[in-house]
């Protein structure tokens, strides 16, 4: 049941990301200083921000950016992790040692600093924070993929394939990779939520999306200055972040339970 609610919510998010004007026809960037700091009410269901922009419109239009950051960052992290993890698992002892050390370095390196460095080198923005979050989350995925690939590679059914005389390449393509990657899809679902939160944290440090983009983290950052007087400025973007991260987690967990064995 919860996973269906979660799925429904995610579908809504995707709709908001692809065709935001369906849900919120207004302009997310249209300022109206005279309308600033309106609490939620008729006309402005989520209230307005310091420049009189409609927060509901901005939350809806910000979905795309946040979702793209979440998905793309996770994709970058997982792609990198796949290369590293599979290489470590199958590449022999030297490669494994090298990659494992490298992962350990990434783990030991404060994730935020890594992101900070990437962002200061390439300048803040959605693309950079996506890359930064992707990089920072890669070692976690890589470790899981490595373990998974190893256990698949030493599994009885891979041995059975060897006994049947299949070539290394075929075993890799037909048995090891598909089985090693399958659980990663679940991880991705779980990871997207976390990536959104991460990206929001970067925005919070003023390192995320550039103004006036209606990205949730950036909205939160802008709103926290007025948290004592205009709670709705942080509440609704914060709610959007928490709900999407939670929905992704719920769905990921449900997928995990359904997975083979």
């Amino acid at each position: 049941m919860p996973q269906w609610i979660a799925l429904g919510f995610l579908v809504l998010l995707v709709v908001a990301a692809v065709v935001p004007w369906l849900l919120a026809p207004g302009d997310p960037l249209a300022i109206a200083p005279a309308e600033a700091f309106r609490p939620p009410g008729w006309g402005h269901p989520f209230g307005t921000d310091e420049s009189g922009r409609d927060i509901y419109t901005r939350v809806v239009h910000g979905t795309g950016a946040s979702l793209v950051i979440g998905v793309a960052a996770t994709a970058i992290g997982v792609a990198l992790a796949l290369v590293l993890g599979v290489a470590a698992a199958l590449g022999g002892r030297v490669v494994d040692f090298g990659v494992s050390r490298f992962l350990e370095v990434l783990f030991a390196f404060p994730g935020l600093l890594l992101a900070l460095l990437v962002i200061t080198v390439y300048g803040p923005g959605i693309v950079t924070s996506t890359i930064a979050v992707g990089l920072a989350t890669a070692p976690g995925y890589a470790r899981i993929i490595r373990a998974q690939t190893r256990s698949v590679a030493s599994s009885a059914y891979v041995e059975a394939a060897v006994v049947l005389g299949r070539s290394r390449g075929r075993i890799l393509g037909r048995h090891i990779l598909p089985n090693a990657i399958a659980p990663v899809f679940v991880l991705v679902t779980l990871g997207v939520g976390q990536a959104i939160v991460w990206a929001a944290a970067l925005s919070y440090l003023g390192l995320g999306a550039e103004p006036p983009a209606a990205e949730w983290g950036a909205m939160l950052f802008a709103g926290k200055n007025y948290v004592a007087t205009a709670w709705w400025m942080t509440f609704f973007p914060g709610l959007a972040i928490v709900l999407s991260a939670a929905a992704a987690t719920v769905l990921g967990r449900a997928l995990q339970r359904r997975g083979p064995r």
Partner: protein
Amino acid sequence: AGPAATTATPASGGTLTYATGFGEPTCLDPHVGGNMPQALVGTNFVESLFSQDADGTIVPWLATSGTPSADGLSWDIALRDDVTFTDGTPFDAAAVKANVEHMQDPATASSTAILALGKVTEVQVVDPTTARFVLSEPDSALLESLAQTWLAMESPTALQRTQEENCESPVGTGPFVVSSWTKQDNITLVRNDDYNSPPAGSAHEGPAYLDEIVWRFIPDSATRFAALQSGQVDVIDEMQPDNVVAAESSDQLDVLTGALPGASIRLELNAGYAPFDDEKVRKAFIASADVNPGIESLFFGTVDRSYSVLSSGTPFGASYPDDFAIDPDRANQLLDEAGWTGRDADGYRTKDGQRLTVDFPISTNQSIPAEQSLFEQIQATTKEVGFDVELHPLDLSSWYAALGAWDFGVTSAIYTKNSPDVLRILYHSSNIIPAPSGYHPNNAHVSIPELDADLTEAGQTTDADQREALYADAQKILSDGAYVLPLYDHLQKIGYGPRVQGLSLLPTLQIPTFYDAWVQQ
């Protein structure tokens, strides 16, 4: 706002907690580098030769008078003879000489001295109570410069120590002494019991009332205000506009404000490079950047719109509101004339396929959130006529790097100086050439010979009327050329809680002074 002014007599003793949002100094000696955090805390333990009153008039402090020679090439500064530094070293002309040498020493890297004392070639010890400043050319702003905390007097004995030591515990003549500095947490200042040199206008004599000041660093403005509200700290600075309003309407809290001297908060258009090398484009920008509604809503009436490059706390400021009238039609017309006739799919103007893009690096350390929101609104209103203003929030180092490389179309920089001479620093063509560090104060890339002449002359004459005329002319030139869009005064906003009494701002730099302050036990 606060409780009705109590008639209770000041009581000695107690600890006051101050929370600053300006950041933690990296060195407590205000000679080294020289920024607002240093001035704020430094005012408690070092004192200057001169001070200013509310009108900006120079008044004596550690010095008793300053007299220029007829040619203006030397100043004789008479000193008090009864002051000692808190390490026991007497304050005298030799100390003044040692201080100026310390400020001018490249190793000290005083960013204030390089401009403010640029004309001082040496200090001669005429007698123990007379120091003679020898200048390379006349400097009408010398005494104003000397009134700044960054050029305050420190014990020459203490200055002999290594810079590290001096940074940890500088020694001055002030009402308080640095007792300890726990990095990233607090500086503890204790009362100087032998204090005898309060500035003019003080409410009492002798040592300060407070036993101790705990000087804390709370970078987050919401937390800072929360700490004030909960009584955890007594005084905070860098208040956000909405907090100012909240404090003023609370019966517990009170607010002290004062316009910081120097330049107003303003946008500087980079006239050295495209697209703002074209005066028409600059004028179009200014005619389309509608800031008044934003200033009203974002600042809740705590600031007034400024039409002057100089802040209202600086003498000789001149306003030309008409030059900043909003007129989108005119802006469109100007842009058409300037050749930006095309429009791209997003509605931005183009010329030869190039978009009318204006890069706007924002220092997240210097621009407060309300200000950044105001920039977003400028972005939105200038978009109407086709400007693509791109806001880039940057950390301080990156921001300076972008400015140093002239990699911006418009920016906002703060410059605090207690003299209209700030105009020379900001708009004299010589200050386009960057300092070796890459820093150039003339961000607008203004290079106009008449303006240079006005500013040089104004900096040399001591005749007030002549200065006023010259500065007015200079400001008119700037205004006509549309190099600057003034926004509002840079305000010092100090909030304080119910325990605090007798708090005031020193007019020189609008820095709070705790000499007369006391806390209700």
